[in-house]
Each structure stands twice: as structure tokens, then as C-alpha cells.
């Protein structure tokens, strides 16, 4: 895996796991929140924030050992870090490299901000949002979620 020398000093390579690169600067901790990683979970992590980036000026990087992200987790990351790249590492080699892409419909990813929405009850359904240019559109109650999307991620 090719690393910028400065970054290499800050974060050492991992043997197996996932490297999330090009995260929007300042969003690394939200990425961890989305992945359910807290101070009490046992993942081995490396986090770099505000690293110099040729593409975007500054970026964050997260490395998670012994964990490969699933598609739904990638969808969630796309909401807050649309330029992130996901590298799956096996035996120190990048085996898969993918960009994140916000899908047209987000299923079970975001909680509807409308307290009167049926998706916020104990019904056996997942929240369902359509991604539109005006924000995330709840396909149950018709509300639009425009602000604080990280705060509404399930």
C-alpha cells in the first residue's frame, strides 16, 4: 500500500482490516460513530485527522484492524464523507479499493427527524430515505432531512 511519507510516520500499516482514506477533514470521529466504534469496543484503531492532502487540502484517515466493512456501513460513511475511499487490507496488501457512493435509497441508515413518522415506532420496518438534491426525503412521512445528517444516522 502506497502511503504519503508524513502519514506513514503517524499511522503504521495494518495487516488485515480496512483503511478509510480521504475522509472529509473533521469527520473521522463521526465515521467511527457510524461504525459503532466507541471507547468501550475492542477494535484496534489508528486515526489521523487534518492530514495534508493534495486533493482536498486536509483529510482524515481511519484504520481499523481485523474488520472489513459491509455495504451498508459504506453507505453510511458516504453520507458524511462523500469523497472517502475504502481500502480492504489482507496480509498488508490492498485487496479491494472502492470509492463510496450515496445510494438512491437509504434503508435503515438514518432516523426520521419527524416524531410523528411511523418509522419511529415499533413497527417491523426500516427507515427509508430517498436521496434528493433538497436533502434526504423520508419515503414514509414525506419529510426532508437537510441539516445535521450525522446526528440522525442510526
Amino acid at each position: 500500500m502506497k502511503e504519503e511519507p508524513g502519514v506513514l510516520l503517524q499511522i503504521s500499516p495494518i495487516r488485515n482490516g480496512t483503511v478509510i482514506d480521504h475522509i472529509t477533514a473533521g469527520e473521522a470521529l463521526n465515521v467511527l460513530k457510524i461504525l459503532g466504534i466507541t471507547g468501550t469496543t475492542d477494535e484496534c484503531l489508528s486515526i489521523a485527522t487534518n492530514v495534508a492532502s493534495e486533493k482536498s487540502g486536509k483529510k482524515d484517515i481511519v484504520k481499523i484492524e481485523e474488520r472489513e466493512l459491509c455495504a451498508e456501513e459504506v453507505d453510511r460513511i458516504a453520507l458524511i464523507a462523500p469523497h472517502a475511499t475504502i481500502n480492504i487490507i489482507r496480509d498488508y496488501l490492498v485487496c479491494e479499493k472502492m470509492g463510496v457512493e450515496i445510494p438512491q435509497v437509504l434503508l435503515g441508515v438514518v432516523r426520521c427527524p419527524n416524531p410523528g413518522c411511523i418509522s419511529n415506532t415499533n413497527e417491523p420496518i426500516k427507515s427509508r430515505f430517498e436521496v434528493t438534491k433538497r436533502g434526504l426525503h423520508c419515503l414514509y412521512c414525506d419529510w426532508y432531512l437537510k441539516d445535521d445528517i450525522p446526528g440522525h444516522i442510526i
Partner: protein
Amino acid sequence: MRQHIISIKEFEKAEIDALLDRAAAIDEGNYDHKALEDRILGVLFFEPSTRTRMSFEAAMARLGGACIDMGGVEASSVVKGETLADTIRVVSGYADAIVLRHPKEGAAQLASEFASVPVLNAGDGAGQHPSQTLIDLYTIRQAMPLEGIDVGLLGDLRYGRTAHSLAYALTQYDVTIHTLAPEGLEMPPNVVEELRERGVEIVVHDEIKEFTRGLDVMYVTRIQRERFPDSASYYAVASSYRVTPELLAGAREQMIVLHPLPRVDEIDPRVDALPHAKYFQQARNGVPIRMALLLEVMR
């Protein structure tokens, strides 16, 4: 043929016009009185309603069908904690279609995902109430063409689902929408934005005489008392607009006044006797419109 009736937004203009035409034919007596004989409508009302429930039941009866209901919520399995999804799956086994009124927004959409029979949305929270909107359009069309008119929405435009749904439906026609609402109850910006994106002109007013003067249709909605923290703040807003014969003296001669009912103080009872008042005719139109909808999904 449409499987479910969930939101007015899913209707194209041609489909709305066809439903209104069918309701007009029904109104003239041109329908098969046994069209839905041996068919059963499951009537699931999770909150009180008089007009909507009774007009659906009347519509079903006029087409030769029968209705079953679950009684009040307090007498149903809902009090035992049953989910709406389960209720819908169970009633799907008893009825050929389900009409649902529910306090939660999106309930009808959820019901359509679990039902094996057509679902008709009879109002879900502050969300959609498509049959009411078709009644509103039908009543306007009885008085004037739906094209090239000025429609005014007055009252609680923030929470009033009927005003939102009517506005969305009107975007299919060449109309100008005028709005007048008490402070804090204005139409939500995202709704206004969506309506404008759909190409409709919206004129926001703050003075009722000027608002009234330019309208062909005045659609009045109730200020909902339950939205206010105390009686004083409710009455301060509720009494800010009242449609009276004196006010209507400045209106266009052919202008009609609509209201989804029930009304409280927003329309003076003296207006009832004026030719402008069409709200009781509007309520009566619930039957032919709902007959047209039942035929649409059940035949």
C-alpha cells in the same frame, strides 16, 4: 387500475381527471348498484372521524358492498400492543380492501407494504389525505374549470394536511395559489419550495381583505387547538381570521368558500346562506368520490 391510494402526489393529471369524471357520472346515477356486491371493506380508524368514515361506509353500501370495522381503538388488539403491520396482515385476510385512518404519518405507506389487498389512505397524521383532496378538486370543478383560477388557502397551513395535499394537486393545473396564515402557522418552507419547483405561482398575503378580493376559491382550514400550549394563545390566533358575510362582500361574485370541516369559529354561520358557501356540498361529494375510488381499487 391502481392498487393502493396512498398519496395525491402519486396521481397524474389525467388520472385525477378520470376519477373526477367517474365521480360526476356516479353523481348522475350512472353506476352499477351491485358493482361491489359480495365485497367487504375493512374500516380501520385509529383516530376519530365522522365524515371520512361515514362517507366511505356510505360509498361501499351504495355499491352493494359491506363494511367491517374494528370498533374503537380501545376495543381492539391495539391496546394489547399489536403493531399496525400485524393488524393489516390480519384484516387483509378478512376484507377485500382496507381504508385506514391513523395518527402516524406514513402509516398508509406502511400498510400498503404489509397488505395483500388494496389500501386506501383516509388520512395519516399530518401527512396525506388523498380522497379529501379529490373531493376538494371535484367541488371546485362543479363550480368552475380547474384551469386559470386563483385559489386561496387560509388558516393553519403549517400542520393542515388538507391544504398541503390540495396545493400539491393544484400544481397539475394552471392555477395561482394564494396563502394567508396566522403567524407561526405559515406553510412550511420545504412545501413552498416543492410547490414552486412544480411550477406553481404562490402569492403570500398578510391582509385578509386583499387576500379575499382576488380569489376564485377560498379554502379555509381550522386552527387546531391542540397545537397551542394554552387557550389564550389559541384564541389569539384563532380569532385573527374569520370569514364573514361582510368580508365576502368584497369578493368576486363567483368565488366559492370550501372547508374540509369540522369548522369552529373560522366561518361565521351567516355565511352558510350565501351562494359562496360550498362546504356542505363538499362534504356530500365525499360519497361519489369515494365510490369512484373504491371502484378503482376493488373492481
